[in-house]
């Protein structure tokens, strides 16, 4: 039977490009009616909720070779490249990645639930802006490798998030990979004093988006002073950001009680959550400040249990 509503009732066309260049070209040709789909876990919730239109064309990214793979860029550089369609389950269980950048695993283990992590990708989570991965990647000075008309373009994650925050929205292309710098890689030597921590608070203990998340990546010198530090935070609908004032406050100083008290106050002021009908702003500021300051307190002290819950193998 032919329906007058045929167009509306039709299943979407599914395109299966094999290269990033082809995928991007398809998107350009079809336009706004096309949607890139990798894991599709977030998209399907948006379609169901009516937050995004159900696309007439889906561009399946799972066959694009450049988008997969996870490992060192090359032997000399020491940095890593994570293909955009690497699943969160892979991020969670990749031994080499865990040794080099434990923050990625720490963030991945807090996202969604096992069945979702088997499908959801690191690229999709990072580009959602409000998941947990962007916060962790910010604390690692990550860069995004885009495919667009100009070919491939590399830009710092923080630059892209800054543009998003300014309302200059839209991805400047197809995300191919996330690059992690050698400078943020965990030292191989056992007495190294780099510490990292990822803390997430949701309205439930698991399978829940973040109300607040905080990532800490700190290097202490021989005297215990902060040699280098990156603190990022997100949660709710805010776009995650580095806490630059907080970082500046503690850099070069000994994280003693007085400094941690100061740090707490600075984070309370600097962390800028968006309105949320279910969670108060004061609570979220206090949570961010508590978690950030307590994480540095733990990183500088004896270690042990993390401020969130349970064992934190990366600290």
């Amino acid at each position, binding site marked *: *039977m032919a*329906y*007058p*509503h045929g167009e*509306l*009732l039709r299943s979407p066309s599914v395109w299966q490009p094999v290269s990033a260049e082809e995928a991007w070209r398809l998107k350009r040709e079809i336009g706004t009616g096309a949607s890139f789909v990798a894991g599709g876990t977030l998209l399907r*919730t948006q379609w*169901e*909720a009516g937050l995004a239109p159900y696309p007439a064309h889906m561009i399946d990214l799972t066959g694009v070779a450049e988008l997969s793979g996870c490992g060192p860029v090359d032997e000399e550089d020491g940095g890593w490249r994570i293909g955009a369609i690497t699943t969160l389950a892979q991020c969670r269980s990749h031994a080499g990645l865990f040794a080099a950048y434990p923050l990625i695993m720490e963030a991945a283990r807090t996202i969604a*639930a096992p069945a979702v992590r088997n499908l959801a990708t690191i690229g999709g989570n990072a580009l959602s802006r409000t998941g947990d991965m962007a916060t962790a990647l910010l604390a690692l000075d990550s860069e995004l490798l885009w495919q667009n008309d100009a070919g491939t373009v590399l830009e710092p994650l923080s630059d892209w998030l800054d543009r998003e925050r300014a309302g200059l929205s839209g991805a400047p292309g197809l995300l191919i990979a996330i690059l992690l710098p050698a400078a943020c890689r965990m030292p191989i030597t056992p007495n190294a004093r780099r510490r990292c921590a990822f803390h997430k*608070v949701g*309205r*439930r*203990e*698991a*399978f*829940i*988006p973040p109300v607040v998340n905080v990532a800490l990546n700190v290097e202490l010198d021989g005297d215990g002073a902060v040699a280098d530090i990156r603190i990022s935070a997100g949660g709710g609908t805010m776009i995650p950001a580095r806490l630059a004032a907080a970082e500046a406050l503690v850099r070069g100083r000994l994280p003693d*009680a007085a400094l*941690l*008290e100061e740090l*707490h106050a600075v984070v309370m002021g600097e962390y800028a959550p968006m309105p949320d*009908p*279910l969670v*108060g702003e*004061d*609570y979220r500021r*206090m*949570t961010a*400040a*508590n*978690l950030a*300051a*307590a994480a540095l*307190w*733990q990183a500088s*002290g*004896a*270690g*042990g*249990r*993390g*401020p*969130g*819950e349970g064992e934190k193998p990366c600290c």
Partner: protein
Amino acid sequence: MLLNRETSGGRWRIRPDGTGKVTGKLAYLTDLSLPNMLIGRVLRSPHPHAYIRRIDVSKALAMPGVHAALTAKDVPGLNRFGIARPDYPVFCEDRVRFIGDAVAAVGAETAELAELALAAIEVEYEPLPVVDDPERAILDDAPLLYPEGNVFHRNEFKFGDIEAGFAAAAHIVEETYSTPRQMHTYMETEGGLFVPGEDGRLTAYSPTQHGFMDRMQLSRILAKPEAEIRVVSSPIGGSFGGKDELNVQPYGALLALATGRPVKLHNSRWESVRAGLKRHPMKIRMKTGVDADGRLVAHRAYVVADKGPYSTLGAEVLNFATEHVVGPYRYGAVDVDTVSAYTNNGMSGEFRGFGGNQAIFALEGQLDRLAALLGMDPWELRRRNLRQAEDPGPLGQPISVTGGAGQVWESLAGSALWGRRSDPALRSSSTAPWLLCGIGSAYVMHGAGLGVGIPDPAGGRLELRADGKIEAAFGYEEFGQGLIASLTQMLVEMFGFAERDIVVTIGDTDVVPDSGSTTASRATSMMWQSLRRMRGPFGGKLLEAASVALGKPADALALGEGGIRAAENGRLLMNYASLAASLAASSAQPIRTQTRFSYPTSPVDRVGAHYMYSYAAVAVEVEVNTLTGRVRVTDQYHAVAAGPVINPQGYLGQIEGGSSMALGFALTEDAVMDGGHYVTKNLDTYLVPTIVEQSGGVTVDAIEELPEGDEHGPRGIGELGSVGLAPAIAEAVYQATGKRVSKLPIDPALLQERFRFD
């Protein structure tokens, strides 16, 4: 007895329906399809409160592939439903009173087409002021949902001189408690398949907790004799009270009859949240006084329940709360007033615990606060005030005597978890000083059965079928609680049958007797009673028939696994199939026994008063993270006195499952509304506990002992586990943090502290 796999020994049996459920092979009723079926959808009001000025379905009806678009004028019979009081419109005629209200329904060839057809229906509304606060709803100046006013139901219970009691009190605690709009969150949302037969009959394959009640109500709506309606209602993917009332059935039935084709409806989770029942949110104000020795001298309670727009079982829930805000204690004087108010909020209705969860949260909170003022151990304060075994019930009514009250008190007092309270290791560690631990407890006395003045029939049937199977037929439902397993276990243990000898028939009004509803913690008790009544007659008939067939005296024979056995040595003499065949050959009457009786009630003239009670004591350990204010439950101990354990797995499942619902009630679950609209529209914001929330241990002590000569056997446990955990958590949080929780779910902001680094 600590109840677990080890202590249960050979009684720990694999559920007959377990394999199908864990492998996904079992087809639920909402999995059913027919080749020619239509998809039904319901158009619901976008407004919490409005007049309907015009409804026009002509554009929807004109769409090819759309076979029906029904409104109120298409209902041939009563355009209302409701178990207790039929005031819930199938389709609203001229006014909508909440955002789940139905105004039209369509049947179309595909789900997408049905969706488009809904969008093509034109409805003109004139919005009315929204009544979204039950306390304000009953003030004189509130907009009215009904000309008679917004008071749906009131109740009260009073005795003694309350003012004199307060005057004599050494300590008085006044507090207001609030409880959330909890959702049942069954995994299977409401739905069903509705099939018109060539013989003019209609079959509704749709979950419910009482098939005959659905049949009666559908008969009333359709103006069709009950005999022409068949309700097939099990298996069910969870209900917890939420599917007891009709939900999609009227629409499916009307659409099927209007189109002459099978119609399937299955609510999305979104629609289930919007239209489905929730636990009545309650605000409970209490003022309670004790003397210097800790005797409760005066107790005042005022309960306001948020009814939503229609009755459902709201009056019965309020009556239950009226009884349970008094609960398990003795008082010098009591003064209870309760009111349930109509609002334009979501639809409240029955939910596991039935008003007891809210009442006990408040009452136990009072006891804990009073204990702190007295400087007394909170469990000792309870002991001093507990009703004794021979005491009347909360409403002064005679109740069945058990020693349960004292037994669960003793069990908890002696538990390892409760003993840890004085352990210094409970205090927080030096590496994470923000983690604080505490232990709390609560006491529960929970009534079962529907109560005085409400028809509460019970019964069942046993039959030796022609194929030699022993068929047990009951009008009860399997919604995950393990009813089939419990019934099978009773047949095995009471009669000596093997599991393979038995066929359980439930959930089909064409073939089962009316056993009353599968609600109010009553089904296992009533199956046990039924089998006890039928054991003599049915077993006797089997042995008599075997005696004739075998030519041996009946007293030399015994029922056993596989067939009739020699009483003296257990040797198999004749299997049940041979016995059935010999009956058929001799043209004897089939062997069949049926029983019918009613749930026992208290001999008082007070509607809803209960006669059979179960008792529970709950201890819980929590860990509060003061950086985040979040609470984790790390250990639970449940002492339960409810008579014999019929099915160890089922019993444990009820207590663990119930406590998991209580955990959500305490920590995460609330269907938040704003101006009559749900803010939490799906399971991404309405949060049931995950396995992480439930990672702590759960120990259950099942106290089976009953007084000599007890006639009633197993008491209900279906709801009990869902009641006590929340107040126990609140007290444990107080012990950890020094902060009192009076509103659920617990707001982490209340428990959060600015961390100090010195």
